[in-house]
């Protein structure tokens, strides 16, 4: 089933971050293997950070993916709003993955600044996809101010710890009418599948693929994990039981 996000329709529910890839060649192969149609990029000084020496935008063109600029590294609403506006000017897109970091060790978002920036950018016509914590109340507030989705962290960025609080992710899914995208903390395919089984509409990940020993194999795994989790979520899983329930019938058992 297609995935509606910000008024656009996607086939893939996997959003891939480009950070952490060893080089553009591996990145391109991973993007293609993942089947993603939406890929994040950062805005950095020309010729400094990886990818900023040229070739990244051309690569994304070749892959036919839509670009999602982020505001990574911003610590205040003022700064994040400026970066979003610079990204809009640079990339001709009003989509933004809004990040406002509140803590250096965990890179968890600053909810107060995040909400402020989201409000300002929505008013300025942006399609705002905020990276948020797994707080159901903050997620609802972000949806209420007009964000096109909410993107709760499963666990800290780059940690690979998976979905730390599945209960909250479920509560977020129940509490908002916009897509919920699990963003950050995914370590391996089962984490992505779990996020989808919890009811998430999509998964955004970077490090799990780009820093894997074999990024292309992991990108393929993530593609199937997101699809499998989505299918399972809609398939009506069996109830958990304390004791066994035989699947083979007792009727007709031979007496020997």
């Amino acid at each position, binding site marked *: 089933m297609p995935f509606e996000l910000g008024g656009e329709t996607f086939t893939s529910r996997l959003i891939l971050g480009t950070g952490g890839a060893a080089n553009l060649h591996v990145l391109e192969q991973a993007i293609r293997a993942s089947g993603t149609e939406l890929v994040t990029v950062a805005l*950095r000084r*020309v010729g400094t950070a990886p990818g900023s020496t040229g070739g990244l935008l051309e690569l994304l063109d070749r892959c036919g993916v839509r670009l999602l600029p982020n505001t990574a590294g911003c610590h205040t609403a003022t700064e994040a709003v400026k970066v979003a506006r610079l990204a809009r000017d640079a990339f001709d897109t009003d989509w933004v993955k809004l990040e406002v970091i509140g803590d250096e060790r965990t890179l968890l978002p600053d909810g107060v600044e995040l909400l402020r920036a989201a409000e300002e950018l929505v008013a300025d016509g942006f399609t705002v996809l905020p990276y948020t914590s797994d707080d159901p109340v903050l997620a609802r507030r972000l949806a209420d101010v007009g964000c096109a989705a909410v993107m709760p962290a499963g666990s800290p960025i780059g940690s690979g710890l998976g979905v730390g609080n599945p209960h909250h992710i479920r509560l977020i899914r129940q509490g908002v009418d916009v897509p919920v995208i699990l963003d950050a903390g995914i370590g391996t395919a089962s984490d992505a599948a779990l996020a989808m089984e919890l009811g998430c509409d999509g998964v955004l990940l970077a490090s799990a693929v780009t820093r894997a020993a074999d990024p292309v194999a992991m990108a393929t795994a993530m593609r199937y994990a997101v699809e499998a989790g989505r299918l399972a979520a809609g398939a009506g899983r069996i109830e958990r039981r304390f004791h066994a329930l035989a699947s083979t019938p007792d009727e007709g058992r031979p007496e020997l």
Partner: protein
Amino acid sequence: MELTVNGAGRSVPAGASVADLVGDIVPHPRGVAVAVNGEVVPRTGWPTRALRDGDRVEVLTAAQGG
């Protein structure tokens, strides 16, 4: 005149515009954005935005990031 461009000192001729500076730094300014003294200068304003001595200029582009 003396500017600070992406954190480093840089001399440009008097009267240079943002467009002149960007043209010196990147041959094809696709995917580039500019801020002067912390304020966004939209692409359409680059040719007419004159730089002044001491301006702090950020010339930014796409980089890998999650």
